[in-house]
C-alpha cells in the first residue's frame, strides 16, 4: 500500500511546487479533451436526440452502429486518423494535388488529437443520449408542441427532461477521452511541450519503469476528473429540487 501513499504524496508535491512540466500537460489534457468534448456534445446530443426521439425504419440498426462505435478501439481510431492526415495519406495527397499547396501539417499537433478524441467520444455521447431521450414520454413532447413549441423548443425541452441521462452521456464521453492514450499518442506523438498529455505522460513514465511517478500523475488525473465530474453532477442535480 505504501507505494500508493507515496504516489499520492508525489502527486501533491508536483502540484504544490507548481512544476511547470506537470501543469503544462494538465493544461493540455484539459484543453484537448475539453474541446473534443464540446465538439462531440454539440454534434452528439442533437444526434442522440434525433435518433432517440424519432421512429424510423432502421433505427435499431443505427443504434447498433452507434453502440458499436462505443467499442471502437482507440488504437484503430488513431491509426485511421493517422492514415488520413499522414503525409502520404489521402487528405494530404488530395490537398496537394487539387489545391497545389502543401497542407499545413496537422499530424502530431493538437487538432489531430482533437479529431481522434471527437471520434472516440461521439458514439458514447450519442449512444447514452439516445437511450435517455427515448425515456421521455411522447405525450410530454406533444404537450410542448401543443403550447407552440417549435422543433427546437421541443428538442430543448426533451433534453432538459432527460437531463440526468444526457449528463451521464457527456460524463461517459469525457471519461472515455480524458483517460484515452492509444489514439492521442499515435496521432499526437507525445511530444514534450507540444502534444504530451497526462495519459501519454503516464505511459511514458510506466515504460521508463517510474511506476511511482506514473501513479502520481494518474492520481492527479483522477483528481481533476473528479472535480470536473463533481461540477457536472452538481449541474445535473441542481434541477433535482424540482424533480421527484
Amino acid at each position, binding site marked *: 500500500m505504501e507505494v500508493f501513499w507515496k504516489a499520492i504524496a508525489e502527486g501533491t508535491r508536483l502540484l504544490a511546487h507548481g512544476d511547470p512540466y506537470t501543469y503544462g500537460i494538465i493544461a493540455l489534457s484539459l484543453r484537448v479533451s475539453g474541446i473534443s468534448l464540446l465538439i462531440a456534445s454539440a454534434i452528439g446530443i442533437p444526434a442522440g436526440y434525433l435518433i432517440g426521439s424519432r421512429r424510423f425504419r432502421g433505427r435499431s440498426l443505427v443504434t447498433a452502429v452507434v453502440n458499436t462505435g462505443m467499442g471502437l478501439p482507440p488504437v484503430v481510431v488513431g491509426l485511421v486518423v493517422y492514415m488520413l492526415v*499522414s*503525409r*502520404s495519406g489521402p487528405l494530404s495527397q488530395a490537398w496537394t494535388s487539387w489545391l497545389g499547396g502543401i497542407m499545413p*501539417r496537422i*499530424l*502530431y499537433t493538437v487538432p489531430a488529437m482533437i479529431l481522434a478524441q471527437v471520434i472516440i467520444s461521439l458514439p458514447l455521447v450519442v449512444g447514452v443520449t439516445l437511450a435517455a431521450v427515448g425515456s421521455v414520454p411522447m405525450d410530454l413532447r406533444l404537450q410542448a408542441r401543443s403550447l407552440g413549441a417549435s422543433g427546437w423548443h421541443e428538442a430543448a425541452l426533451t433534453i432538459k427532461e432527460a437531463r440526468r441521462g444526457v449528463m451521464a452521456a457527456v460524463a461517459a464521453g469525457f471519461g472515455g477521452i480524458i483517460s484515452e492514450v492509444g489514439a492521442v*499518442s*499515435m496521432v499526437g*506523438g*507525445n*511530444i*514534450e*511541450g*507540444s502534444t*504530451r498529455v497526462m495519459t*501519454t*505522460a503516464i505511459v*511514458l513514465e*510506466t*515504460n*521508463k*519503469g*517510474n*511506476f511511482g511517478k506514473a501513479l502520481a500523475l494518474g492520481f492527479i488525473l483522477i483528481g481533476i476528473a473528479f472535480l470536473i465530474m463533481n461540477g457536472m453532477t452538481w449541474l445535473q442535480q441542481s434541477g433535482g429540487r424540482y424533480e421527484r
Partner: protein
Amino acid sequence: KKAEEPEEPAVEEEVVEPTALILASTTSTQDSGLFDVLIPAFEEAYPEYKVEVIAVGTGEALKLGENKDADVLLVHAKAKEETFVAAGFGTERRDVMYNDFVIVGPAADPAGIKGMTVAADAFMKIKTSGALFVSRGDDSGTYTKEISIWKASGETTPTATPTYQLAGKGMGDVLKMASEQAAYTLSDRATFLKLEGTLQLEVLVEGDKALFNQYGVIPVTDATNAEGAQAFMDWILSDEGQSIINEYGVEEFGQPLFIGNPS
C-alpha cells in the same frame, strides 16, 4: 443399432505441463521479429519451459525484474544493467549480441550529414543546421545511447525545443514521426530495416563504433523459474542460440539484424 464397443483404454500419455518462463524484453527486439524464431527453437530444445515474452521499454523491463515479475531479461542498456546486477536484482549479466544504431533522415538530407563517420559530429551538424531531430525521450537503450553521443559531441543533454522533439515513444513510432516530419533520428538497425518500407527515411550515418548497441541477458535473482532463466541464458549463449541470431534477417533483408557476441 448401437454397437457395444469395448471401452478402449485411454492412452495416458505422459504430458508434462511446461512451466512458464517469463522473458521481459524490449519492444524493439519483439518488433524486429527475432523472437518469432528464437523462442520456438528454445522451446524445442527445452520442452519443459514455455516462454512468455513481455515486451516493454528497457526501463519497465528492469522494473519488472526488480519486482521479480520476470524470470530473465533481454535488454540493451549496459550501464543500467550493470547497476541492476550490482544492486542484487540479477544474478549476473552476459553479453548476448549486438546490433548497431544508425542515424537516419530524409533523403534530401538538409543538414548534409550523409556519409559522415563520426556520430557525434553528425549530431552537432544536425543541431547547428536547425534541422528537426526526433528523440526517443524515454529510458530506452536507444535514448541512453543518444545521450552518450550528445555527451561525446560536447553538448549538454538537449532539452525540448522546436527542432528537438522529445517523443517519449517506442522506436517504431519515433521512426514514423521522423518520417512524417522529414526529421532525423537515431534508430537501431533492426527496427529500421523492418519498417523501412513504410518510411521515407534513409540511413545517413553508420559504422561508428560508438553506435554499437549491446544486448545483455540477466537472470533475475530469486526468480520464480530460476532454473528456466539459467537454461535460457545458457542456451542463448550456446552455439545453437547464437547461430539462430546470426542467421535471422539474412533472408529478408540481405543482412543479419543482430550479431552474436556472447561473453
